[in-house]
């Protein structure tokens, strides 16, 4: 369709696609941190029980690494619409009303994340200037604290794209949706769950009553 091609080329669509690799990379970094946490845990058990030499400051290390797992994937998760919400009302709406609510939701999120970016940066800056370290092994804490404003900034940009995407659909409800999460009903959520565990080998089955 001519309409679709035009939409594909729009600035918003290009920003949406161009931003995806950054989010994917951040989530991949979080995934790598999970892998490292596993390796570190096994190492700690082996070193402590077999060689009686536990890793110095293991708990500090784990606590500092938590920030990467807790925050880096936030924008990726946002793009896929996987942060929990109540679907009761939004799953029943369509058209302008739906997109207006989505835009309001994204705007509220942008406000609170903006406040958090500013003040978590302050939290980092204090740790950096004071040279704050962990109590036990005295690792510096600022790199871990810096991850919060970084991850939240990526998240904020994704939220902004979603907000603009939703506002665009409030103005032109018939346009092709770009950079928004299309609300799903239960049957579609079920399909997502199936794909999550079975990957691409899940048969493309459509639930009853859906076309």
């Amino acid at each position, binding site marked *: 369709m001519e309409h679709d091609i035009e939409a594909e080329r729009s600035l918003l669509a290009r920003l949406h696609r161009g931003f995806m690799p950054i989010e994917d990379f951040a989530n991949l970094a979080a995934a790598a941190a*999970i892998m490292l*946490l*596993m390796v570190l*845990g096994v190492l700690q058990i082996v070193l402590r029980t077999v060689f009686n030499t536990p890793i110095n400051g293991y708990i500090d290390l784990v606590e500092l690494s938590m920030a990467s797992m807790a925050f880096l*994937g936030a924008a990726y998760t946002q793009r896929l619409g996987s*942060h929990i*919400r109540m*679907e009761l*009302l939004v799953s029943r709406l369509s058209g302008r009303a739906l997109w207006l609510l989505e835009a309001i939701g994204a705007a509220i999120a942008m406000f609170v994340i903006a406040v958090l970016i500013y003040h978590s940066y302050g939290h980092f800056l204090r740790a950096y200037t004071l040279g704050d370290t962990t109590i036990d092994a005295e690792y510096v804490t600022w790199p871990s604290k810096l991850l919060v404003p970084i991850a939240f900034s990526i998240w904020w940009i994704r939220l902004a794209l979603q907000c603009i995407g939703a506002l665009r659909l409030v103005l032109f409800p018939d346009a092709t949706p770009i950079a928004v999460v299309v609300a799903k009903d239960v049957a579609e959520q079920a399909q997502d769950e199936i794909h999550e*565990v079975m990957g691409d080998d899940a048969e493309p089955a459509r639930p009853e009553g859906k076309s």
Partner: protein
Amino acid sequence: MIIGIGMSDPFLVGVITLCMLLGLIFIGVRVVFAAAVVGLLGLVELRGWGPAAGIVGTIPHSKSSTYALSVLPMFIFIGFLAFHAGMTQQLFDAARKWLGWLPGGLAVATVFATAGFAAVSGASTATAAVFSRVAIPEMLKHGYDRRMAAGVVASAGTLATLIPPSAILVIYAIIVEQSVGKLLLAGFLPGIFSAVVYAGIIVVWAMMKPGSAPSVKGFTWGERVRTLPGISPIILVVVIIMSAIYGGWATPTEAGALGAFVVFVLALVRGTPLKSIKNSLMESAKLTVMIFSLIWGVLIFVRFLGFSGIPGAFTEWIVGLDMQPMTIMICILLGYAVLGMFMDAIGMLLLTLPVVYPAVIALGFDPIWFGIIAVKMAEICLITPPIGLNCFVVNGVRPDIPLGQVFRGVALFFIADVITIAALLMFPEIVTWLPNFDFEAWWSGLWAAAL
């Protein structure tokens, strides 16, 4: 100050913000943002912009970087890896050979295979998806009633959240400041108990309707024993996690890491493509960030809630009610059943616990017991209309079984769940016995007796 009430009436500010929170959640604002923004605005009203924003800015990092929470990514990773390592077929095969002779044997086997898989996975819907593929074809081949075949898979999936490792129980433990180890242990017996009640109700049903759930006989003991090596990795993971919690030779995080490592090695040995392993890591990262966002978002709100005095007032009101504590408990549980229809179990617990939990404790209920029963309640909502996500999952994998039939098949197991809940209410020892069991005293007593 925003509306000008400030510290003169923190309770009123609390009530207003609580209504705002409910409104935002109702219009579909994601829970993390709704909780964080309402908590922020409430704190601003009570403390002024500067101090409030300053407090809120530190919460995400300080609340996320705690050692106790680090067990979550490990448990989540074990779960996603286990699906890709493909242990479900062996589990079902083993359960079929050991339990197939019972009336409704294949359905009973499905229940216990799912319970076994729950020992490496904490995800209900995902478990239902996988077993829809493994168990339903086998049951249909043996002439099982389609409703039974679909119902048992959808229902047995819910066992995953009680049997350790369960992410939701870890979250509960951290929010209400109870021992993670105790909660994980506490889920074990109720999980097994639920499975036994499911199995019992299948056997009774199969005896009443012979032919619609026939038994499968003729396996030799040799065949049965040969299924054991295939399921040994799962047994190993269970032993690692349970013994670490009981014996204290590793923290839950370390035990989770070792468990994940076992499943990881198994996945590599089985030739799981690296792409699948990367996918399970990406999915784990996604689920981890989702849960952590909820935790810090809700904790921002909780920080404000503490200032407002709402939890204390709610507790006073509940304790002052002229009702039996058990009646109040049943009302709370019914409330959870209704809420669970519209919201994910983790979100529902996180949002309600800061207010509900102090009241429950003031009524004299055991904190560990309440965690288990609240989670069980939330799980029931996965198989009941109007949402019943597990039923949709089964229907999604097997579009040839209409949704109506899945829901009708689940009805039997809904009765089983009501029996389980009633039993947990009447005999709280099912929950509290294992976590309070003094293993060391028992062990040394055993030694003394042996000598």
